[in-house]
């Protein structure tokens, strides 16, 4: 086992030596630092005094900015890991050694993961700094970091996997970007479309209110009539929303509730939204209103009733990453029985 890991380590070092030592990597690092750092510093300097309260929401966006930037850079580092080596003729030189396909692919995933984490590393001081100076909640930053690490790993695995299964480096890099775009934007569109597509005709009981002049209170009364209505069913497509990395991030950060029991920042609000869409549409009935006519908040207890969607989302990502890695391992297995048309072996 330790020999196996040692060999994996050799592949990782080889990968890093190739990727990290390229000029492009350093240039990208500097650009990322300037963009992310610049946005955070400028925000901090321009939001003074009372605006700081508003600033909380804006600062929250900087975590999303870091996620956006890292998810845009990672495919560039991983999307041609295997087919790029094939084209350069270096893949075969590793294939004729004692390295197994699994070590080769995992080494490449971990190598480009580490290389991409460099981008997170240059953003981290800015995030921590703004947290300490009062812009961000520190626990938000501390939870966001591991989630960012995992998400970068997910994109790395997808990139390396696709680069094993697709012959052309350019194509596999583009497809990796498309996968990132699908999860970032496509899931939102898919969720919206799915919600409408799955909408449903339902028959509901009609309720009415009886106002008592003397006591000044109203009573809920079921009229016994029914009516037809169209109900959207987001609960049937919420998995799509759960797979969105930004939603994962928002839901993973523990919500900070205000006096009314509602989350007070954008993460918590998104998280709450994802929890709510898990529940089937409620048929409003008089039971929702207490005997005293006060309204029972459906949000109450929702964190206990519903699944932690960040966990589900990460699970989906881990499964997909595993599938991509498995596909790449099958593709680098030698001696090869089948070859993609026009592919180069050595």
């Amino acid at each position, binding site marked *: 086992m330790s020999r196996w890991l040692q060999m994996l380590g050799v592949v990782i070092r080889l990968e890093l*030596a190739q990727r990290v030592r*390229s000029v492009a990597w350093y240039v990208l690092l500097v650009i990322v630092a300037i963009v992310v750092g610049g946005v955070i510093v400028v925000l901090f300097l321009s939001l003074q005094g009372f605006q700081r309260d508003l600033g909380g929401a804006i600062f929250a966006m900087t975590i999303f900015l870091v996620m956006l930037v890292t998810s845009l850079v990672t495919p560039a580092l991983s999307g041609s890991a295997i087919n790029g080596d094939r084209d350069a003729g*270096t893949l075969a*030189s590793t294939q004729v050694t*004692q390295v197994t396909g699994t070590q080769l692919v995992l080494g490449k995933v971990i190598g480009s993961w580490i290389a991409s984490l460099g981008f997170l590393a240059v953003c981290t001081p800015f995030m921590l700094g703004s947290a300490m100076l009062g812009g961000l909640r520190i626990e938000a930053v501390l939870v966001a970091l591991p989630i960012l690490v995992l998400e970068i790993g997910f994109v790395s695995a997808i990139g390396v996997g696709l680069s094993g299964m697709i012959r052309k480096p350019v194509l596999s890099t583009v497809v990796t970007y498309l996968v990132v775009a699908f999860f970032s934007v496509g899931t939102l569109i898919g969720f919206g479309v799915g919600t409408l597509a799955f909408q449903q005709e339902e028959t509901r009981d009609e309720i009415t209110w009886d106002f008592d002049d003397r006591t000044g209170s109203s009573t809920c009364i079921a009229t016994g009539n029914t009516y037809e209505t169209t109900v959207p069913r987001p609960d049937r497509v919420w998995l799509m929303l759960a797979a969105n990395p930004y939603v994962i991030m928002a839901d993973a950060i523990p919500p900070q509730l205000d006096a009314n029991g509602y989350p007070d920042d954008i993460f918590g609000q998104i998280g709450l939204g994802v929890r709510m869409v898990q529940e089937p549409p409620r048929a409003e009935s008089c039971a929702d209103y207490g005997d005293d006519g006060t309204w029972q908040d459906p949000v109450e207890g929702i964190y206990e009733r519903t699944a932690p969607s960040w966990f589900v989302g990460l699970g989906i990502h881990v499964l997909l990453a595993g599938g991509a890695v498995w596909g790449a391992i099958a593709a680098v297995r030698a*001696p090869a*029985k089948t070859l993609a048309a026009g592919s180069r072996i*050595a």
Partner: protein
Amino acid sequence: MGGAQPTGSSHAATTATTVTQQGDGRPDPIPASAHPAFVDPLAAGEPAPGLDEGGIVALHVHRSFGSVHAVREMTFHAKPGRVTALIGPNGAGKTTLLLMLASLLAPDSGAIRIDGADPMHDPRAVRRAMGWMPDVLGTWRTLTPLQILTTVGRLHGLDRSAARERAAELIVEARLEELANRPSRVLSRGQQQRLGLVRALVHRPRVLLLDEPAAGLDPTSRVELRGMLRGFAADGGTVLISSHDLSELDEMADDAVFVDRGEVVRGERLVLAQQASREWRIRALDPRALSYQLANIGVAFDRVRVEGELAYVALDRDEHAAEVLARLVGAGVPITHFAPAVGDMERTYLGLSGGAR
């Protein structure tokens, strides 16, 4: 008799028209060889090699890509202790064959053994035993030669210190000491080639597969390569070397495997090809005397080709060459050079590809 005439296709139609009838006391014309109908029964009946004979064994290997049959039927044995040349025109299936031998590509059918190991069932044993140098060598361009050799050693399972030691040793062998710590992208083609060669040697393999190893090498490096391969074979190693430089192979290789259109050329075709006429290059102090006497001693005009000071004479057998030389000297031509224009392998190769010159 004009004597000299550039000929397009010489040997195919020559045999019937060789005899010149002079009948005036000149030396008898050189007898024309019969159509090469002779088939060496021994060469034709070459038995198929056994799978456990060591070295490289390929038995009825076949591989196609879609409808293209890159390798149809290849059977040969590259023996331990010998340098075997793999020769054939472009597209004959040499590279596909080498990829299969290097455990990178699976044959559709047939069996392969590299030092007794089957690449299909035990590729790791094959990779332990085999060093492979591809024709277009991929190098990690940002890594230094020392790092490359150390990494390859570690990928072959050497531990850190052993890999470093071996790398340092091979750097000296490849004469890359001065470039050992520069990125490998600054290496010239020949230096890359030397690096690629020692890279194939990192794990001390017993079988070497080399694809065009001499391409881009300077003469010194070629001599070294030859010495290295001879030494490798003398220590009991098996070398299979694919190249287009046939004169180079002539000097280096003990055996040859000729491949054409995805098949190993079997004995009888080989014998026929070797019987194809070969050109001899003759130079004399007096070129005009030479061309006159060539005609005079009875060499058919369509076997002679004069280019500047040199005369080329297509002859079917070495005995004929000896006779022509004797007669030219006897006729008083001041010969300064008399040698085959092409080597044995080149002659066979050209014979196989239809005698085109």
